[in-house]
């Protein structure tokens, strides 16, 4: 029985109504992002890294930008990278995109079960990682392949993991793209959202307990900020002044749910920092120089014992959520092309060209070269097997690493698994 739905007579109270957020555009709608306020590049002040958190609060609802429509770098956030540094950044972002394109196709060809691109968001992982030290610990979500590529993690290892083949160092256990790469200080990726955030805080606290100089940096999608772990992470980071940098990649969508379902109708994600009393920055996520500058600012701040920063990278998820998704069912087709902050690779390339350090020809040649590198890695990985074609890890690996030493019941179950394989694939048909 529902309690009385209508106010008692005479109460003269308004009838309550539930608000359910609705995105501006659905399939078939014309797209116009005119409602977004995009401030000019260079107009945002850059407080000192050691400033009081409150000095950053206006930046939580502003947008830190460096690259202007004139393809020049502007203002105090310009990180003044060398041309070589910017070319490296460009190359790494382009590598991520080329890699994504090839991997997506391999999934479509049935060579693996799953893939997930980060098209349009390359700067948020590549440029941010470049702003960290190699020793800083990365706690990624699943869309940060750019962090690995920026740390020169071998493509071959990535493809082996994607194929779950016999050379996959994660032994075929994990869904494709849920990498782990301790050698480049990249934490094992969970499929469960936002769990990495309190872990990053804890790692940073440990570093502080030990009087170390390493910091931690964690990434999370805007949709996942709704999870309790996001708030746990920020509370602990604020309480202990932990040396950690949180990056919320606001790509506007969480599978089919627009950012309004994580609270974006009310305020920015960066503005969550205000409630916790920590530094916050909202940054043009498609501006690689702004991303680099913001992440470097926050990393320096953490290193100087001035505590955590929450950065929102404002960007757009150009592709579907993953190979399992069809975005044309729930969002307007033209959103990607209409996105007012452009493309991070095109913008940085245009900037390098504008300052006379790059050319369209060089860009085209670079793409061909990168594609060659990716194809070489794929060929090498295919020799180690693709998903479901026999060249997988031995069945015994399924039982290893559950515990440090295998208890009796797993040893029994392992024997059963080996027996079953012998029944299913007698010696004469063993792959």
């Amino acid at each position, binding site marked *: 029985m529902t309690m009385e739905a209508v106010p008692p007579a005479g109460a003269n109270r308004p009838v309550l109504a539930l608000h359910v957020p609705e995105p501006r555009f659905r399939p078939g709608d014309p797209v116009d992002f005119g409602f977004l306020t995009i401030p000019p590049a260079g107009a945002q002040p850059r407080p000192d890294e050691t400033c009081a958190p409150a000095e950053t609060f206006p930046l939580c609802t502003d947008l830190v930008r460096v690259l202007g429509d004139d393809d020049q770098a502007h203002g105090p956030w310009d990180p003044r990278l060398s041309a070589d540094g910017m070319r490296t950044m460009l190359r790494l972002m382009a590598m991520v995109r080329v890699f994504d394109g090839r991997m997506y196709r391999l999934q479509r060809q049935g060579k693996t079960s799953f893939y997930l691109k980060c098209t349009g968001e390359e700067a948020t992982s590549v440029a941010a990682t470049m702003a960290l030290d190699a020793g800083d610990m990365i706690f990624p979500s699943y869309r940060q392949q750019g962090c690995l590529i920026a740390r020169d993690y071998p493509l071959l290892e990535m493809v082996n993991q994607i194929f779950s*083949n016999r050379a996959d160092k994660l032994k075929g256990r994990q869904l494709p793209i849920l990498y782990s790469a301790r050698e480049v200080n990249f934490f094992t990726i969970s499929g469960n959202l936002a769990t990495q955030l309190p872990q990053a805080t804890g790692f940073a606290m440990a570093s502080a307990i030990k009087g170390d100089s390493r910091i931690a940096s964690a990434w999370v999608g805007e*949709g996942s900020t*709704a999870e309790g*772990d996001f708030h746990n992470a920020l509370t602990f980071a604020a309480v202990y002044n932990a040396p950690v940098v949180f990056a919320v990649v606001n790509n506007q969508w969480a599978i089919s749910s627009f950012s309004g379902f994580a609270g974006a109708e009310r305020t920015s994600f960066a503005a969550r920092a205000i409630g916790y009393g920590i530094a916050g920055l909202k940054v043009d996520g498609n501006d690689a120089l702004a991303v680099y500058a913001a992440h470097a600012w926050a990393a320096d701040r953490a290193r100087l014992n001035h505590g955590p920063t929450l950065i929102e990278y404002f960007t757009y998820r150009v592709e579907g959520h993953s190979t*399992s998704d069809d975005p044309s069912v729930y969002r307007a087709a033209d959103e990607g092309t209409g996105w007012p902050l452009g493309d991070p690779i095109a913008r940085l390339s245009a900037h390098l060209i504008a300052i006379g350090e790059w050319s369209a020809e060089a860009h085209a040649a670079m793409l061909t070269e990168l594609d060659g590198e990716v194809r070489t890695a794929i060929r090498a990985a295919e020799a180690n097997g693709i998903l479901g074609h026999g060249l997988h890890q031995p069945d015994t690996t399924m039982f290893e690493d559950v515990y440090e030493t295998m208890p009796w019941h*797993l040893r029994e179950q392992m024997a059963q698994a080996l027996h*079953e394989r012998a029944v299913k694939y007698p010696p004469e048909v063993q792959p």
Partner: protein
Amino acid sequence: MSTDEGAGRPMTMIEAINDALDIMLARDPDVVVLGEDIGFFGGVFRATAGLQAKHGKTRVFDTPISECGIIGVAVGMGAYGLRPVPEIQFADYIYPGLDQLISEAARLRYRSAAEFIAPMTVRTPFGGGIFGGQTHSQSPEALFTHVAGLKTVVPSTPHDAKGLLIAAIEDNDPVLFFEPKRLYNGPFDGYYDRPAKVWKGHADAVVPDGHYTIPLGKARTVREGEALTILAYGTMVHVASGVVESLGVDAEIIDLRTLVPLDIEAIEQSVRKTGRCLIVHEATRTSGFGAELSALVTERCFYHLEAPVERVTGFDTPYPHSLEWAYFPGPVRVGEAIERLLAAD
């Protein structure tokens, strides 16, 4: 079992679930459906497709990505008098909601002496067989059967999915409704290397029109037999049936359908008749629901048993990606257990 059961038509399990939700939204203004991506989009498995357009945005709506929040608000809605049907996108993602489920939903009735209840039905896809890796494949039902105050339901056919879901929604206690995702679009006998089957043409895919319920706590005898009893639920009902057919064994297969409350009578009756019992589930073995079943059968049918009770389960490891079929309790594991049970005397 039925109230106003109509003629019926073949459906997939997804369609049957969608139909149950549609009927309950239309019949009962207190029913609300909520979850990640379930509104405009209709859910990642399309279980709620079309429901928001038909019943409106305040009856069927998307939620923030917070399983704890989803279950927590469902508790509050229940306190008001609504009958929420939250979806957790994958059972693997239910863990952030455990405190609200275990400490709150399950105990509201008890701690308030029934002043407050939590009449929610948490729908969630579970089980493997889709190369989903360890975060899209788990079978965590035993975590919930262990909690006093929660009911746990697992359908294995479109017909049962609809009737059980309606019964669950109408039930005044919190129900965990685990949907075997491998069965969404067709039955699955465990032969992963053969072409996938569809529900069309399957007897249990004929779903009556309109409202009907299958009472919680009632098992279904899939097949009568004398040689042994097989207790199964979800996907494993079909795997067991396939093996029994191919071995030509006179097994009695019981689809439990509800784990809590359990149809103990059906189990006792069958095991007393056959004297042999095989328990099959996809979930990990240690402290799995099979352990409870084995204990019950041993406690209650001990003097009728002619062989030790056997369990066939998933291995006690996280669900692996590439070795999915080595992990899965498929026809070889089930078949050998049947043969062992029949050979024992």
